[in-house]
C-alpha cells in the first residue's frame, strides 16, 4: 500500500464463500481506504455481488476475516446498517410515494439522518421532490436510489452495477452524482463490468474473476498497463517500401506496426528516416493497451483456469 497514512474503511482477509459445491469466493484479500471510490470489476458470475453482499451483511461468509468500518458484518449487522448506504442492482421502491416522501421514509429508519432537501439537491432531484416515483425516468430513479442510500448520512456507500441497462445520457447523470460523493468524503464501493465506468469514477480498482482478485491498482497502472509495450502504427504511401532497420509487421495494405520499448527513440529513428526519404507517415500514432485490453486478458486467464478445473 502506497499511502499508509490514510485510514482503512474495509479490510478483507482470506474470504471464502461457497454455494453448495460452487466456490463463489476462493480466498479474497482486499483493503479499501477511507474516502476513495473503489471499483470492483469482473464478468458476470465472477463473485462481485457475493463479495459485496457479504460486506453489506446480506450474506454470511464461510471463512476469513471481514471488517467494515471496524465492524464485523456477521456479528453486529445493526451497528453496520446505521453507517452504510446500499444501492442494489434492482431499483425497487414504492411507486406511489413522492420523491421527498420516499427519502423521508427511509430517513426515519436512521438515528442521524441527513436533511431530505439537502439529499435531494445532492442528487439533483429538487425539482422532482413532489413527483411520484412512477413518473421518474430510469436515470432519475437511479438517482433516487442513491438519495435513499444517503438518507442515513452513511460513511460508506455500496453501489452494485449502478448503470447496467441504462442509455448513455442516464449513465452520465448517475456518474456525475457518484463523482460528487467524493466531495462529501464518503467511501464508495462500486461494482461494474463497464471499463469506462471504472476509468471515469474509480480512484482504485480490483479485478475479480473466478472468485479471486486477479489484479489491483489504479485505472492508469492496473496490471502494469503503463509499463506494457506501446505499439507504433503508421501507413506508407503507395510504392514506398518500409525502412529495413525496424522489426515491422505489415498489418494491411501499406499499414505497419512495431512494438516499442523505447518510444521516444523509435519515433525519432522512424521520423528521421521518413524525412530523409521524403515520405509522409500517414496516421502515425502510438497506442498503449486500454483498461479493457488489460481486463480482457486478466479475465480470460481466469476463464481458462475455470475450464481446466471442470
Amino acid at each position, binding site marked *: 500500500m502506497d499511502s499508509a497514512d490514510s485510514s482503512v474503511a474495509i479490510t478483507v482477509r482470506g474470504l471464502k464463500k461457497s454455494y453448495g459445491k460452487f466456490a463463489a469466493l476462493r480466498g479474497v484479500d482486499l483493503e479499501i481506504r477511507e474516502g476513495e471510490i473503489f471499483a470492483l470489476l469482473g464478468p458476470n458470475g465472477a463473485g462481485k455481488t457475493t463479495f459485496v453482499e457479504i460486506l*453489506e451483511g*446480506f450474506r454470511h461468509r464461510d471463512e476469513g476475516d471481514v471488517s467494515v468500518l471496524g465492524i464485523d458484518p456477521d456479528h453486529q449487522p445493526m451497528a453496520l446498517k446505521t453507517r452504510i448506504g446500499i444501492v*442494489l442492482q434492482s431499483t*425497487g421502491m414504492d*411507486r406511489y410515494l413522492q420523491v421527498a*416522501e420516499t427519502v423521508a421514509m427511509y430517513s426515519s429508519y*436512521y438515528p442521524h439522518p441527513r436533511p431530505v432537501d439537502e439529499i435531494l439537491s445532492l442528487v439533483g432531484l429538487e425539482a422532482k421532490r413532489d413527483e411520484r416515483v412512477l413518473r421518474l425516468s430510469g436515470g432519475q430513479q437511479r438517482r433516487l436510489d442513491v438519495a435513499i442510500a444517503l438518507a442515513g448520512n452513511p460513511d460508506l456507500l455500496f453501489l452494485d452495477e449502478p448503470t447496467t441497462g441504462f442509455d448513455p445520457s442516464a449513465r452520465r447523470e448517475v456518474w456525475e452524482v457518484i463523482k460528487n460523493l467524493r466531495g462529501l468524503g464518503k467511501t464508495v464501493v462500486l461494482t461494474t463490468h463497464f471499463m469506462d465506468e471504472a476509468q471515469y469514477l474509480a480512484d482504485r480498482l480490483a479485478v475479480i474473476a473466478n472468485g479471486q482478485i486477479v489484479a489491483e491498482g489504479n485505472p492508469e497502472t492496473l496490471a502494469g498497463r503503463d509499463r506494457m509495450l506501446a505499439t507504433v502504427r503508421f501507413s506508407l504511401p503507395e510504392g514506398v517500401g518500409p525502412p529495413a532497420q525496424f522489426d515491422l509487421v505489415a498489418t494491411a495494405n501499406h499499414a505497419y506496426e512495431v512494438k516499442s520499448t523505447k518510444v521516444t527513440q523509435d519515433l525519432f529513428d522512424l521520423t528521421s528516416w521518413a524525412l530523409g526519404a521524403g515520405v509522409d507517415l500517414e496516421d502515425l500514432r502510438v497506442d498503449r493497451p486500454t483498461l479493457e485490453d488489460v481486463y480482457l486478458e486478466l479475465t480470460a486467464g481466469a476463464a481458462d483456469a475455470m475450464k481446466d478445473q471442470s
Partner: protein
Amino acid sequence: MLENQLKYVNKAFWRNPASAFFTFAFPLMFLVIFTSLLGHHSISLSPGHSIDTSTYYVASMAAYAVISACYNNIAIGLSIQRDSGVLKRTRGTPIPSGIYILGRLLHALFVAVILVAITAAYGKLFYHSSLPTGVSLLEFLIMLVVGSLAFCALGFAITCAIPNADAAPAVVNASILPLLFLSGVFIPITSTAPSWLLWIARVFPVRHFALGMDAGFAGATFNWMDVVIVVAWGIGGFLVSAKFFTWEPKR
C-alpha cells in the same frame, strides 16, 4: 419509527389504484350487489332461527372485507414488494424487521376496521340490520381483531409459497375463493348442504370467522370455539412465516 412507517404504508395504499379498488371497494361493491339482488328474503341458518338475507349479507360481507384487507392485501402487496426488491432494500436499513411487519399488520387491521364499520353503517341505514351491543359487541370486537391478525399471519404464510409477483393474485384467489364459497360467505350454507362440504368448512378458519361476524350482526350464538380455531390458524400462519419468509426475490 412505527408511526412513520404506518403513515407511508397508508399513503401508498390509497394511492395505488389496484389495492384501493380490489381491497377496499370490492367488498363494498359485493355488499351492495348481494343485498340488492338477494335482500328481503328470509333464511334459516340454524333450526328455529331465521334471519333476513340482507342482514346475513351484511355479516358475511364484513367477514369478506376483513379477509380481503388482511389476507389478500398482505399476500399480494408483500409479493410485489419482495419481487421488486423493496423488501431487500429495507433489510439493508436499520429498521427492525418486526417494526416493518407490524406496520403492515396494523395498517391491514386499520383498513379492515374501516371496512367493517362502513358495512355495518350501510346495513343499519338501508336494511335496518342489527348492530352488536353490550357483551356481544365485545365478543364481536375480539373476533374482529383476532380474525384480522390471523388472516394477516396467513397472508404472510402464503407469501412464502408465492413464486413471484405475477403469480400472487392467482395463488391468493385460488386459495381463498373456493373457501369463501365453501364457508357460506357468498351463498348461505343451509341444512341441506352435503356433509363433505360442512367438514371442509369446519376445518378451515373462514367459516369460523364468518360465524363470529354472524353472531355480531345476525344474532346467532357466539361460540368461543370459533375464536380458538381462528387463533390456531393464525398461530400456524405465524410459525410458517417465521420459518419460511424471505426478504429477497425468489429467482
